């Protein structure tokens, strides 16, 4: 598998302090990389940099083999899709919410209908299609938020703690469904989470992030079984 995304010497400073310092990180096509770490580890900063919503102070990002800074912001963002912790649905119907990204891209109505119906069905919310998004439960709303991202069929899917605001039974069901969709589509995904069980369930590779640095990365079970140092062991509860 070739790398879709490659980061090298990436640094972000805030008020004089280095909050993100990534020497090297590659994300291969089709893999689901979970970035795990405690609160304040720099996961969200990395997420914002990857989404091109925050500029790094130094370093290089290669996307599809091209330096990301040579790609205009809009063109870059239209190759990715974000799912955040809160579903952040607009005050419109479920269908219109799922269609919004394609509308931004000027897709035809026929293409929008085809993709939206497919993904609403795939995420088990097709029956809610005409319902106002504000009347959904938390789990339903997050499913619509995921459908809204999958509809775009992006090169890179960025998930920022998408299950953290859900209750346990809803989270478990959604995690199962998302796992199945990601296995089926082989969509390259970066999944930010502080929940080790979620990472273990969903990811094909995990990277442990502490104090802005990637301390260890590898196959989830290996990382959990053999932490590379005391800091990682401490975070993993070993």
């Amino acid at each position, binding site marked *: 598998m070739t790398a879709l995304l490659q980061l090298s010497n990436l640094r972000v400073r805030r008020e004089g302090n280095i909050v993100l310092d990534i020497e090297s990180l590659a994300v291969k096509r089709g893999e689901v990389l979970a970035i795990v770490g405690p609160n304040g580890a720099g996961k969200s900063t990395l997420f914002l940099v990857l989404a091109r919503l925050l500029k790094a102070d130094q370093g290089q990002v290669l996307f599809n083999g091209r330096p990301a800074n040579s790609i205009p912001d809009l063109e870059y963002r239209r190759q990715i899709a974000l799912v955040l912790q809160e579903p952040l649905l607009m*005050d419109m119907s479920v269908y219109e919410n799922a269609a919004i990204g394609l509308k*931004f891209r000027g897709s035809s109505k026929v293409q929008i209908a085809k993709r939206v119906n497919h993904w609403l069905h795939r995420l088990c919310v097709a029956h809610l299609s005409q319902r106002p998004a504000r009347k959904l439960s938390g789990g339903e709303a997050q499913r619509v938020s995921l459908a809204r991202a999958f509809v775009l069929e992006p090169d890179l899917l960025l998930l920022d703690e998408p299950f953290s605001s859900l209750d346990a039974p809803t989270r478990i069901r959604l995690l199962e469904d998302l796992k199945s969709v990601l296995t089926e589509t082989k969509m390259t995904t970066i999944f930010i989470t502080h929940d080790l069980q979620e990472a273990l369930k969903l990811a094909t590779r995990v990277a442990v992030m502490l104090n802005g640095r990637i301390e260890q990365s590898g196959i989830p079970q290996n990382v959990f079984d053999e932490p590379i140092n005391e800091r990682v062991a401490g975070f993993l509860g070993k």
Partner: protein
Amino acid sequence: MIFDSEIPQITLLSLRVSSVATAISLLIGLPLGTLLALGKFPGRSFLLSLINTGMALPPVVVGLAVAMTLWRSGALGDMRLIYTPTAIIIAQTVIAAPVVTGLTVAALQQLNPRLKLQLYGLGASRAQMILSLWREARLPLLAAVMAGFGSVISEVGASMMVGGNIRGQTRVLTTAIVLETSKGEFEQAIALSVLLLTITFLINWALTWIQQRGKE
């Protein structure tokens, strides 16, 4: 004495100047309020303070400033706008624009700040992101329009000072009410007041209906 035959003309002029002033205020206030709500630039807090102060500008103070500007010896005196409906529109715009701007800022700031990031993350251009936020804040934005219109249809000081209450030319409902009251023609003043209130109510009722559609 105001004759019945004059009332339609006075009413239409009131509606015209206040509607045009509100529309211009919207054209100024919506983009400026959006810039203040979403942007980060030096002087933003100062500008916000100015806008918030402007929301409570006394109409007579606005009338004085606009009159001095449009007066023959004023900066725009050559344009000969004093005592014309255009002068009233200018004064009313100065009154309504800070109201619309300030309430636009409030409307956009009550949205989840991460919504902007989410929209960008779904591939929205800057214009698409702003249009989406306006759509999302459409109820409070419509309230901003109502407040802006309400602030000018009911003001009298500025209209009197820059319009002059000239019969058949710049007499609007509020200045006509003042005139009738000053002459002791209370019945006429009450009738005009009821007319003004009815018009204001009907316009706000229509806007509220648009605002609340689908919310029940």
